[in-house]
């Protein structure tokens, strides 16, 4: 049971890092970024390619930097020019981008599944209350916890964090207070994409890499964002941990219903609290 709970934390941690990027982008732009799953996928492939030469930390850094640049480009070239359009236009464009990036990954890395090895420094297992658990999975939990802590401190204590929180509540009014929300948006989308890239890289040794790997986690990330409360960072954290547990325990105890459970949870939460766990709180 302990191992299953820890595995749930691993998956919940990965989901959190991906979905918090979606939350950041939704909060500021009020759009659902369908390309976010493909940013996760690109992060996994970039990490896979760099890890062979630069090791795990080099891969993590490279994925974060490359995806941050992709995110900044996405905001400047697509999201900002479309900000006055109907949100459905942006949704369709980002969905199209998801397909393009999947084809791009297929072109560069091929269709076959790739497997990234566990970094040597984190190989092996440790005993936790008499149960063996892989060190690398503990590292994933630690990275997710660090991301959550770092993001929370950044949002609470930095000027940009203050503008992000204000923009998440009301972007137009924040702009009218004199804040350059376009500049904040570039930072936020780049950060969200970098987090997706980090998540992709650290998940590479746990998952098989394929061009379509982003689609599955995207759907569960959407569930996290909706259950947590659209635009809520704390809500996304709680929802990711809960869904990680539900997902994992479901796979073990009710495998025939495992894929349904997150959706049923979402329906239940929306009936109980239509605005999600955290409501409108940022």
């Amino acid at each position: 049971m302990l191992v299953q709970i820890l595995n749930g934390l691993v998956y919940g941690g990965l989901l959190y890092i991906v979905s918090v990027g979606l939350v950041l982008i939704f909060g500021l732009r009020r759009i659902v970024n369908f390309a976010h799953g493909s940013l996760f996928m690109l992060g996994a492939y970039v990490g896979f390619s760099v890890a062979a030469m630069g090791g795990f930390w080099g891969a993590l850094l490279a994925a974060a930097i490359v995806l941050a640049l992709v995110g900044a480009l996405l905001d400047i070239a697509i999201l900002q020019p479309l900000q006055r359009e109907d949100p459905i236009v942006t949704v369709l464009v980002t969905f199209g981008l998801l397909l393009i990036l999947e084809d791009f990954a297929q072109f560069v890395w091929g269709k076959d599944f790739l497997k990234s090895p566990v970094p040597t420094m984190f190989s092996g297992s440790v005993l936790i209350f008499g149960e063996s658990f892989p060190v690398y999975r503990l590292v994933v939990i630690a990275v997710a916890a660090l991301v959550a802590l770092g993001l929370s401190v950044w949002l609470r204590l930095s000027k940009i964090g203050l503008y992000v929180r204000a923009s998440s509540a009301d972007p137009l009014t924040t702009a009218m207070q004199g804040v350059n929300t376009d500049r904040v948006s570039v930072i936020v989308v780049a950060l969200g994409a970098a987090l997706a890239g980090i998540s992709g890289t650290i998940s590479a040794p746990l998952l098989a890499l394929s061009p379509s790997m982003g689609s599955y986690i995207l759907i569960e990330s959407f569930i996290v964002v909706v259950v947590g409360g659209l635009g809520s960072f704390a809500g996304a954290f709680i929802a990711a941990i809960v869904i990680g547990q539900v997902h994992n325990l479901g796979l073990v105890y009710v495998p025939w219903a495992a894929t349904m459970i997150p959706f049923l949870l979402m329906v239940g939460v929306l009936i109980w609290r239509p605005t999600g766990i955290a409501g409108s709180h940022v």
Partner: protein
Amino acid sequence: MAESHAIEGSKLTRQFGGFFALKGVDLAVKRGEIRGLIGPNGAGKSTLIDVLSGRAEHRSGTVRMFGTDISAMTAQQRRHAGLARSFQRTNIFPDLTVIDQLDIASRAAEMPNIDEIMAELNLTALAFRRAANISYGDQRRLDLALALIGRPKILLLDEPAAGLSIGESLELAHILKDLAARWGVTVLLVEHDMEVVFSICDRITVLHLGAILAEGTPDQIRGVPEVVTAYLGSSV
């Protein structure tokens, strides 16, 4: 050469589908003037404030600030140029503290005067309280404080006294008139509380169905039969 007005809208038109919220409105407010903008619900008052502040785009017409055409400026650029506004609704950033909100508004200010504004509006003791946890009257004063940060040249206020008691409304009106006089701020005030409007405004513009029905001093407006019939009744 004639002195330019602080804020001037010419032939402003704003359309929602087939409905014209503004039908070629001309409005010119002199420097240092407190101008009241009144009219029944749906008259186009908030729409006019939205268009002047850059929150909403207009279909035709121009907006000038001290003689300069600012029609193409974004709301943010207008704020930096010294045009500030408040909003009908309060508690826009419920999770942020009072001082954090004033800090954000001070981004547009050359001289951030957070302490001064908090003292003027009795918000100092509430500095570190979340906006969601302060009273409605305090939220109203916070809304005004956000607009006043940096001593703007022009202030557009959208129902700042809405929901306040008679005493609170008159206190707010007194603070507003005092600050406008001391700082030389030009004010365009949308308000339904006629006691507030008639007690502090130099001139009043009456808007009805997206067009100007009348304009003049408070005494002149009291004497316009159409305004009294359509809007004021016997309240003033």
